[in-house]
Structure formats: structure tokens, C-alpha cells
């Protein structure tokens, strides 16, 4: 009973903070709300029975990704208040978003649970799967991350400083 109550409580919190992200006017404030939203989501994961992912949510999203966002926002010293789009564009966006969300809600509400007593897979099964069936994708993520790092380095390099690693101009 208590988990269910907490679930709705945290769900409301998730939605509220997400709304603050979306309707926020300053990037720094939005980022802060997003961090709060991630904390609520992490709590939801915990309630659903995924403590490992809940921890990862905090560590990776809040600890790494959002810090990166904040760094960039601070670095660029972004303008005070955000301009919004023209009125028609915003209205069209809202209509589309509401339609999509309500469709999702309709689909989810019509979805009958398959099992009476849901049982989330335990940590043991998850780690086993990660290092057996999912070994190749898991290893490939490291390649993806290296590629992302290399890409970020290349993109972020200041164009003015000459590149010491570049090959000499003349070639036979």
C-alpha cells in the first residue's frame, strides 16, 4: 500500500518538475529542475524494483550528464531569458504534444497486465545477462563512448591553434 502511494506521489513530482523544465525561461533553472526530475524518476525505478538502475540514474544522469550541461551553460554564459517561438508555432507544438501524450495514455490504459503479481528480475539475473547475452552490445557501447569522446574533442578543438598532430603539408 505504501509503495503505491509513494509511486503516485513521486509520479506527480516527476511530472511537475518536468513541466518546470519545459516551461522554464532560464537554462540554468531548467537544468536544476531536470535534476530534480531525475531524482523523482530514480525513486520510481526503486519502487518498481530496480535499485541498480535507480543508482545509475543518479550517478550517470545527475552526476555526469547534467554536470556537463551545467558546465556548458555556465561556459557560454547564456543570455538571461529565453525567447519563445511565435504564437502559432507554440500552439501547434502544444496540440501535437498533447495529442501524442493522450494517445499514449489511451494505449497504456487499455493495456491489461499480463501477470497478476509482477516480479522484477533480480540483480543476479541482470548482471548475468549483461555479461552473456548482451556481452557484444555491452562491449560495443565502449566503442560508442570512445567515438563520442573523440568526436567531442575534435569538435571542441579551438580552430585558431595549429594542430600538432596534423601530417606535414607536402606529400610525394
Amino acid at each position, binding site marked *: 500500500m505504501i*509503495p*503505491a502511494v509513494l*509511486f503516485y506521489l513521486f509520479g506527480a513530482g*516527476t*511530472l511537475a518538475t*518536468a*513541466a518546470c*523544465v*519545459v516551461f*522554464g525561461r532560464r*537554462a540554468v533553472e*531548467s*537544468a536544476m529542475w*531536470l535534476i530534480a*526530475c*531525475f531524482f523523482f*524518476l530514480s525513486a*520510481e*525505478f526503486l519502487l*518498481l*524494483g*530496480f535499485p541498480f*538502475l535507480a543508482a*545509475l540514474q543518479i550517478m*550517470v544522469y545527475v552526476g555526469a*550528464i547534467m554536470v*556537463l*550541461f551545467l558546465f556548458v551553460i555556465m561556459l*557560454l554564459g*547564456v543570455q538571461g531569458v*529565453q525567447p*519563445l*517561438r511565435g504564437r502559432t508555432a*507554440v500552439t501547434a*507544438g*502544444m496540440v501535437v*504534444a*498533447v495529442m*501524442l*501524450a493522450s*494517445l499514449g*495514455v489511451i494505449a*497504456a*490504459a487499455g*493495456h491489461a*497486465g*499480463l*501477470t497478476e503479481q*509482477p*516480479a*522484477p528480475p533480480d540483480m543476479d539475473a541482470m548482471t548475468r*545477462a*549483461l555479461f552473456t547475452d548482451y556481452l557484444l552490445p*555491452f562491449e560495443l*557501447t565502449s566503442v560508442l563512448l570512445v567515438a*563520442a569522446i573523440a*568526436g*567531442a574533442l575534435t*569538435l*571542441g578543438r579551438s580552430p585558431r591553434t595549429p594542430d600538432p598532430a596534423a601530417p606535414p603539408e607536402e606529400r610525394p
Partner: protein
Amino acid sequence: MIPTAHVHILAALLFGLGILGFLRQRNAIMLLMSVELMLNSANLSFLAAAREQGNVDGAMMPLFVLVVAAAEAAVGLALIIILFRKRVSLDVDLLRSLRD
């Protein structure tokens, strides 16, 4: 006892908010944050399904989404820095170079 359907509904609403943010905002950083919201709503749905079926496959997906999100944030923010260097603005509505 949390019904699976309600978790999916929460995910759908969260996704809608993400879409809304993506369409409403003009700041490139805000767009990326909206994308993070959408990714997280997908994670939520995956976990709901994994919980219902007691299946590890659904629980694996958020891990990979997490990695993709990290990579996306790194590259996306690097692009934003370049954008800022070139245009001194993050307003995506001022970018019209995708024409033709």
C-alpha cells in the same frame, strides 16, 4: 501494488512534456534537455514491461539508453559550443542552412 498501466501512463505524459519542450523552446541546450526527458520516459516504459514479465531484456535497455544519452550529450554539447562560437547565439530558429 502498482499497476503496470499506470507506469506506462506516467511515461506517456512525461514523453508528451518532452515533445512539448522540444517544440516550444528555441534554445539549443533546452532542446537537448527535452530529449533527455523523452529518453527517460522510454526507460520508464521499458522497466515497467520488464517488471511485469520478469524479463531481463527490458531491464537491459535503460543501460544502453544511458550510454547513448551520455554519448549524445557529449557530442551535442560540443556542437552547441561550436554553434555559439560561430553565431554567438543558441537560437535554433536563426539556423536556416538545412534548406536545399
